[in-house]
């Protein structure tokens, strides 16, 4: 199995850490040995940490001239065999989109930590937002799939960064940690494990790097230096990487496989968490920091006699539509609080069937309070 348990290389035990530092430690623990980046509020502490740490651990750190160069460097490093990452915020994600499409199409594992701030555009750089949900999925042109995970605690800034690496390496896709300023800058108790599970990239010498007979297959990934004849191109290519810019069958098979390799494994990828869902009539669907406000509100609602529950989405992409449909069957209503104008609300609505969905949006650069969610639950009950 390419998933193996190893000793956690960062200090184990009970610690008090910031979210951004925990994400950087997660990257180190996952085996990341290349960071290419450009500093941006509110993610810069990740870059600062990696700039100190990577050299000591035999890795490489490059500050590039901008985010376009940063993600390009990360893609290149990944093809040398390194687990590679960058961290940024919304404006950086916008600049990276072209190369993220390149990474998806060339099946290059890369991890991007997006510590979201109040956008669009430059927006309020130091304030929180959660507006990049759709951008990380649909930002580059064409059809492709990515993985995006949504941490709600400093503990998960660590553990989900490792998971982002594991999924990225296993599926050969870009994987995002969709963090938020409020979690990146939160300092919190972390119970750091003694061991971590990390995925080692699949490589079988002589196997084609871009093809598989299986229409949902994930090919073996060689690195430059392994001695393979290796061509990497953003044009449509055959299983050996030769450009195939004519011929409908090549393009159709490749584009479908790039999606199917992720979508066919949704059951293994998608994770969620539930609180008081067993008899819940009103279900709050929340993710990231907002799920903490939601949990507090759900507990208060229960004390007030309202049968509320929380469905917390840990995986945002691929989106677990079956989960929404399943929970909808027992629910009288969904409430979707978000620090954007309803990006996940639209998805919940699409799969909620006849269950009514209420959106609670806030884009003022501050976190949604438990009181706001509780008030909405009271109105719905």
């Amino acid at each position, binding site marked *: 199995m390419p998933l193996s348990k190893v000793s956690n290389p960062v200090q184990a035990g*009970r*610690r*008090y850490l910031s979210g951004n530092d925990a994400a950087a430690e997660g990257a180190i623990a996952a085996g990341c040995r290349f960071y290419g980046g450009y500093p941006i509020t*509110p993610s810069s502490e990740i870059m600062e940490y990696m700039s100190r740490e990577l050299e000591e651990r035999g890795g490489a750190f490059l500050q590039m001239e901008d985010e376009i160069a940063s993600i390009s460097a990360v893609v290149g490093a990944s093809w040398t065999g390194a687990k590679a990452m960058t961290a940024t915020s919304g404006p950086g994600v916008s600049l990276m989109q072209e190369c993220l499409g390149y990474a998806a199409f060339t099946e290059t594992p890369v991890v991007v930590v997006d510590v979201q701030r109040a956008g669009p555009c430059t927006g309020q*750089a*130091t*304030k929180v937002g959660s507006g990049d949900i759709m951008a990380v999925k649909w930002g580059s042109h064409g059809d492709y799939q990515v993985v995006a995970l949504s941490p709600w605690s400093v503990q998960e800034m660590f553990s989900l960064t490792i998971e982002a690496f594991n999924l990225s390496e296993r599926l050969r896709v870009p994987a995002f940690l969709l963090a938020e*300023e*409020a979690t990146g*800058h*939160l*300092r*919190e*108790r972390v119970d750091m494990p003694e061991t971590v599970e990390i995925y080692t990239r699949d490589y079988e010498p002589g196997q084609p790097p871009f093809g598989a007979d299986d229409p949902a297959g994930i090919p073996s990934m060689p690195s430059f230096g392994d001695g393979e004849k290796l061509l990497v191109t953003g044009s449509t290519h055959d299983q050996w990487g030769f450009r195939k810019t004519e011929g409908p069958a090549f393009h159709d098979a490749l584009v479908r496989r790039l999606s199917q390799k992720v979508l066919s494994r949704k059951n293994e990828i998608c994770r969620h968490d539930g609180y008081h869902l067993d008899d819940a009539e009103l279900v709050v669907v929340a993710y990231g920091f907002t799920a*903490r*406000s939601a*949990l*507090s509100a759900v*507990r208060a609602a229960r004390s007030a006699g309202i049968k509320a529950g929380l469905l917390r989405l840990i995986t945002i992409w691929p989106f677990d539509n079956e989960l929404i449909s399943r929970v909808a069957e027992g629910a009288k209503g969904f409430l979707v609080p978000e620090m954007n104008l309803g990006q996940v609300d639209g998805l919940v609505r699409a799969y909620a069937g006849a269950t009514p969905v209420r959106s609670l949006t806030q884009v003022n650069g501050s*976190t949604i*309070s*438990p*009181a706001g969610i509780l008030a909405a639950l009271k109105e719905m009950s």
Partner: protein
Amino acid sequence: MTERKEIRIAGLGGQGVVLAGALLGEAAVKQDLYAAGSNSYGAQARGGGARSDLVLDVKEIDFPHVEHPDLLVAMSQGAYDLYVAGVAGGGMVLFDSGLVTPQAPHDRYGADVTALSLNELGNRQVANVIWVGLIVGATGWWDESVAAQAMAEFVPERFLELNKKALALGLDMGRAWGEA
């Protein structure tokens, strides 16, 4: 400490507000509590007001931000004016009496910490560690020896003795407040 507590330390940039909050969070975690801390971040941290919020609990913390502090430490008049109305019912307000003019009923626990730091310890910069001592002593929410241990990890070796004195000074006064 048996239930959730919310603490807000607020003053001006440069008073060591953020360090005091981080130190108290670290100390809480060392004694097996859950702690979640947030600081003011942005333009206000580079000049004007500075704020360090801390939530403590014996169990996992759901909402990690401070809404109605059980303890407000006001190190400037601006911070006092801005935050005193949000203090929880029965909450405690500590203030720097050289810098803040409080209103009843929040006028009980004042100390001229800035002057004390300068006059007793010859250094204005350890005022925040005196405050840490005051907070620990007055509330009883932290184990004093663990707070001392956390402090030792936060300050440079060459300033350790000075900071130990500052912490002890704060603890003595804080304990008296706690018993009052």
